[in-house]
């Protein structure tokens, strides 16, 4: 095996060891709470995944190889696949005793912050298992590999490549600090801080400590798992919903902006970002539209309640969190489809959100508008601008290419779901909810994937990883040119 693959194996091994640690907190909690059976499941799966990581790492620990850009893709994809596999272990051997495909789906859904689930009856599960699901979402929100770059000194060289292969959005070469490890630390620091703040807010607004922490873990990461089948309806508390709206919105903003705002102790930077402005505008327009639908059809009696619930669902969907308050898929008129389509747009680049990202959508829309203007004024010089600055032709091209490939994947996924036995509406919902990392779909997969075939579950798993790694990191591995030495 060449040096290159040994180096890749080494890093994947290290990251598996790191991700195996996620099983320790639930194991310890299970012990502390005196649960039956679960401690041994968590300790066992910790040991197994730890040993797999060590077995990958030890034989090649001394490899000395300078990573190239393309190696980052393989490492990141391998990491996500392996991490999903080993994270599935507790779901198989402990409650809820899922089958392997279902367990892998559940773990992937957690790590990719999708929030789709195969489990029905969350309220009966042991608390350690519930906590573990939330923890997976927290870990995947900012990214396993970025966490590894932040805390493992051996990834100092080549960290930039890994970072770029995992981070989201069209412009991946903006660093917050000169060194990549510092940037990764900064991002994780902001992420951790926001999650903590969110947990405290939930707690003070009336959740018990366990639920507050668990929901914070899946709110800022815009993931969407809950500890109750009814999710936020379990409390039906307006104040909790507003807190969730706030922190989901924050999770959908570029974490680079959060970092700069925190560093300079001023909110000014938020005002200067054009992507953020578009993001907030889209939320406002969609919230008003959905409110109108709900209010005019009399789904909710009061305008205030309709507005709150509409905003909650809009934010939950555009940030691809996927908390569903009220079974929105049965809302009247265009509301359900409109909400699901919002997930295509997603949040800002550099956030924890899935979807296409606002920046890309805005850029492509402006590019389209430019073409139209050019038809009217064939000789005119029109530019695509973002925030008053010209976007270079190559960025516009790569964004268009990304969106094209993304939608091709979407169509394949949707047709695949149809083949796997889902009806038309469910196939569409399933493809959207996995590729955008949204979670709840439409039709049969609106709340749970427990009833669909194994093939559909596997396709969903693939879709989630494709979506989280923004398609290219995975697809590049399928080209022969990548493997040519």
């Amino acid at each position, binding site marked *: 095996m060449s040096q290159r693959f040994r180096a890749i194996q080494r890093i994947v091994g290290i990251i598996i060891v790191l991700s195996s640690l996620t099983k320790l907190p639930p194991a310890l909690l299970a012990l502390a709470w005196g649960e039956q059976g679960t401690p041994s499941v968590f300790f066992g799966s910790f040991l197994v995944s730890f040993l797999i990581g060590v077995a990958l790492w030890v034989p090649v620990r001394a490899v000395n190889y300078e990573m190239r850009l393309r190696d980052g893709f393989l490492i990141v994809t391998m990491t996500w696949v392996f991490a999903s596999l080993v994270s599935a272990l507790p779901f198989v051997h402990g409650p809820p005793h899922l089958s392997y495909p279902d367990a892998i789906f559940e773990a992937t859904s957690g790590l990719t912050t999708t929030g789709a689930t195969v489990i029905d009856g969350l309220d009966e599960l042991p608390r350690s298992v519930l906590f573990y699901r939330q923890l997976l979402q927290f870990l995947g929100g900012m990214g396993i590999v970025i966490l590894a770059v932040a805390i493992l000194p051996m990834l100092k*060289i080549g*960290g*930039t490549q890994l970072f770029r292969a995992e981070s989201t959005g069209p412009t991946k*070469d903006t660093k917050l600090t*000169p060194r990549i*490890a510092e940037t990764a630390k900064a991002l994780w620091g902001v992420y951790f801080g926001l999650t903590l703040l969110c947990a405290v807010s939930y707690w003070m607004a009336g959740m018990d400590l366990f639920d507050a922490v668990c929901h914070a873990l899946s709110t800022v990461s815009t993931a969407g798992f809950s500890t109750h089948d009814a999710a936020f309806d379990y409390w039906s508390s307006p104040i909790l919903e507003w807190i969730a709206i706030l922190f989901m919105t924050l999770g959908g903003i570029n974490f680079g902006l959060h970092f700069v705002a925190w560093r300079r102790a001023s909110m000014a930077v938020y005002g200067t970002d054009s992507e953020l402005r578009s993001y907030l505008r889209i939320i406002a327009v969609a919230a008003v539209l959905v409110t109108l639908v709900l209010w005019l059809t009399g789904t909710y009696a009061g305008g205030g309640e309709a507005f709150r619930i509409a905003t909650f669902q809009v934010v939950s969907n555009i940030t691809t969190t996927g908390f569903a308050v009220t079974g929105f898929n049965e809302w009247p008129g265009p509301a359900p489809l409109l909400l699901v389509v919002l997930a295509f747009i997603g949040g800002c680049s550099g956030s924890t959100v899935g979807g296409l990202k606002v920046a890309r959508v805005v850029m492509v829309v402006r590019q389209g508008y430019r073409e139209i203007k050019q038809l009217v004024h064939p000789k005119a010089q029109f530019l695509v601008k973002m925030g008053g600055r010209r976007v270079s032709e190559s960025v516009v091209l790569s964004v268009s290419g990304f969106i094209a490939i993304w939608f091709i994947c979407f169509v394949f996924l949707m047709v695949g779901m149809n083949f796997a036995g889902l009806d038309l509406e469910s196939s569409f919902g399933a493809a959207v909810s996995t590729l955008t990392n949204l979670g709840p779909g439409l039709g049969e997969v609106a709340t749970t994937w427990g009833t669909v075939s194994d093939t559909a579950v596997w396709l969903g798993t693939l879709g989630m990883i494709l979506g989280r790694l923004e398609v290219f990191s995975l697809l590049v591995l399928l080209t022969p040119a990548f493997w040519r030495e």
Partner: protein
Amino acid sequence: MKILILGAGQVGSSVASALASENNDITVVDTDHARLRELAEKLDIRTVVGHASLPNVLAQAGADEAELLVAVTSSDEVNLIACQVAQHQFRTPTRVARLREAQYLDVAALADPEHSAVSAAISPEQLVCRHVERLIEYPGALQVLDFADGRAQLVAVRAVPGGALVGHEIRELREHLPTGVDARVAAIFRKGKPVKPEGSTVIEVDDEVFFLADRKNILTVMSELRKVDPRPARRLLIAGGGNIGRNLARSLESRYSVKVLERSKERARGIAEDLINSIVLVGDCADEDLLREENIDQTDVYCAMTNDDEANILSAMLAKRMGCPRVISLINRPSYAELVEGGSIDIAVSPQLVTLGALLAHIREGAPARVYSLRRGAAEAIEAVVRGDRRTSQVIGRGLDELELPPATTIGGLVRGDKLLIAHHDVVIEPGDHVILFVMDKREIAQVSALFQTGATWL
């Protein structure tokens, strides 16, 4: 250390890559997007696209936090203004600028360093000129490095058959040398790999040997390693009348008979106006007939100093084949230098490495008196100043053999007052000594600098 580098040209890039591996936070500013991206792909640095002297670009690049600003854009004026802005608006403590124009240099040197915008000015052309001058002075030397204002020199020589010490152990050196003459072998590179010089190490043919000696003894010591031509160089041919070629001719024309070869007729006229004793020729440096016409076989040293690597290499090879005994060529690309040096070309001079060393002296923690970057940046020769007293310093009052040096580091000697003391085990370090170290593996530099750190710094 937080370092801001303005300009991602040859010097900027090589400074960035030399420093990025040493735990520094580096930000590089340039107007060329593509070049920055290429750099960011290779190195763990932040890049900012923009005009380097503009305050908002500097602010974006983190000038308010930077401890050191290195202005190496291609324009002297941009470098000066960037330093000015950094000084007044961002209070950047140290500002190093590259200045090509000699008049600016004079101004920069005259001004009080406390208040001047540029705290240290570096002129690559001048440095390269001086470097080449010293090489011409010592025929056979691959590199000549000054320490303690030229009192001591570290010279690199390739051992050839016929040198008295070649094939013998290093400890015999003292017996060979006349009384009063002393020298120390600081490093040996054999086939590109460092060999730690011990008393029992045998010098082999083709070894690259670095030795330290007093300036007046250099030629005596060199003769131990190769047959030294007793007749010093007389006739020089310099190809390329750019800044380097012209400055070189100007400073050498009083001592040597110099010919300058320049392609552009207009430029040649300008040079001719400037020079007094030299002959300025108009023509291509790869023109065989012209070289023969000008008696290349009678020329002692041929210096290819154009700004084009390929032209330099080819014309130097041509001159060598046509009978010129020594050819020196300016080569920017490290890979080219590795290919040709020692084979078809006697000496490859890398302007980047020469400049890098001068910059490193300002950048290294504790500001050593002098740093030379060697072997494409893999090794360094350092002149460290011993400061503090017995309590604050780890080295004062200790013999050289008592120091805990990392394995690939040797001490060549130390300069005390006006005298060079060659490193023998009985030499004891005193305050104010300038210790000359040779670090064969760059990774040990942090350790070495920690050793010489007093409570505060080196200087």
